[in-house]
């Protein structure tokens, strides 16, 4: 039992330390510089309709990978919170969800810009577009639920429950429904897309770099917000402590005067 606790403390330390390390942030910058330069300048396969818009692959698709990964982290921390109610877990959960939603919004914007140039409309009732929009609605509801609760522990617990519940509803939405429907989206309904024979090796190289780079960027974003929140929380605690102490001192002084 004691050993187990030590191990858990170690795990937390590792995550916290990892947040402060700079090597993976440097790697993120390098990967993203390569992604932007290579994604915009390298030769791409000539394909009908797609033409140069195929380059969106490096900027749109990784957003979804990033979003799913970040939201998964968020759910993991919600589960952790329910198992062991520490406010720190809640901070992790909400900030990973925040970063995931930012990625989701960027994904939906880049997707609809691309759709305008290839399908001819910003929004074309595509199951993937609809699924993405509904997914975002779920997480906006999560944030509103959080704002409507006052007490910190209560907020953390109830939003953790909703986070887990909503994530379970999101999975069929994103992974099962689009497969049951015909779609214009690449990779669906016989359209070329994310298949071994559709992507040539140049495209693939940049694409994998992009996925890794953008996801790391999301992690970086979340880690900064998490650290900021934790510091804020500590400052608040300190303030409260000081306030109580000065209050106490003032009371003591008053008493001594009256004596």
């Amino acid at each position, binding site marked *: 039992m004691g050993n187990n606790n030590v191990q858990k403390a170690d795990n937390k330390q590792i995550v916290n330390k990892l947040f402060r390390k700079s090597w993976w942030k440097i790697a993120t910058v390098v990967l993203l510089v390569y992604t932007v330069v290579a994604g915009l300048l390298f030769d791409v396969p000539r394909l009908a309709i797609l033409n140069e818009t195929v380059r969106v692959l490096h900027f749109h698709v990784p957003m979804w990978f990033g979003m799913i990964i970040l939201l998964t982290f968020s759910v993991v921390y919600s589960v952790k919170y*329910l198992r062991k109610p520490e406010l720190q877990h809640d901070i992790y959960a909400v900030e990973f969800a925040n970063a995931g939603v930012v990625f989701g919004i960027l994904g939906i914007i880049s997707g609809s810009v691309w759709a305008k140039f290839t399908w001819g409309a910003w929004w074309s009732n595509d199951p993937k577009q609809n699924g993405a929009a*509904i*997914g975002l*609605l*779920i997480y*906006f*509801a999560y944030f*509103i*639920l959080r704002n*409507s*609760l006052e007490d910190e*522990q*209560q907020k953390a*617990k*109830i939003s*953790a*429950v*909703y986070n*887990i*519940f*909503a994530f*379970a*509803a999101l999975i*069929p*939405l994103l992974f*099962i*429904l689009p497969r*049951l429907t015909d779609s214009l989206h690449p990779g669906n309904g016989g359209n070329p897309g994310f298949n071994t024979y559709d992507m040539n090796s140049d495209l693939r190289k940049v694409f994998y770099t992009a996925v890794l780079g953008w996801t790391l960027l999301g992690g970086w974003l979340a880690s900064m917000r998490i650290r900021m929140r934790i510091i804020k929380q500590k400052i608040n605690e300190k303030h409260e402590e000081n306030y109580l102490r000065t209050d106490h001192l003032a009371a003591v002084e008053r008493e001594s005067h009256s004596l």
Partner: protein
Amino acid sequence: MLFREIIILLKKEVVLEWRQRYALNGILLYVVSAVFVCYLSFNLQQGAMDVITWNALFWIIMLFVAFNAISKSFMQERAGRLIYYYTIASPQGIILSKMLYNLILMLLLAVTCLIFYTLVMGNPVQHGWLFSGNLLLGACGFSATLTMISGIASKAGNSNTLMAILGFPVIIPMLLMIIRVSKNAIDGLAIEVSYDEILVLLSINVIVGLLSYILFPFLWKS
């Protein structure tokens, strides 16, 4: 043990509802009025509505009725009584009995809605069994999901708006499947065509039920 508890709690729900019938009558009147409002706003000759609209409208009415009926499940009771339940019953028993009760309520409402809807808008359904089966699955899904959501919303104060924003996005995947199966049933397609959808619907129901069973105790404790 759990089973007995659920039966007792379920009996309690039914008795409570029966004693103050205004809530039940209210929601029944809500169904009928909603159907009538839709009928008048479309200003229909009987059977003049096309099948897609018939189907979508029916399920939208069902969705709103479900929200209204189920959102009461935790708001109606006073805090003191909830604390009393807390001391004598297990959270699993409570959530399962509420779900079961809401399922019965939803079935009652669905049948009422269907009868009245058929009366004013006609009934194009060709594959009756599939349609009824789908109605049953839909009622299960709505009651399981919305009972849990209403539990969450009731913890957060201003419940009705919150219930809607928390519930709508979560229920959409289920609603899409239901509407699709329902459309197949109306068109009289063989049941094999809808196997995929039915399977997804069943698995969503199972997942939601299981998650509520696991998560509700955390909600109940706070």
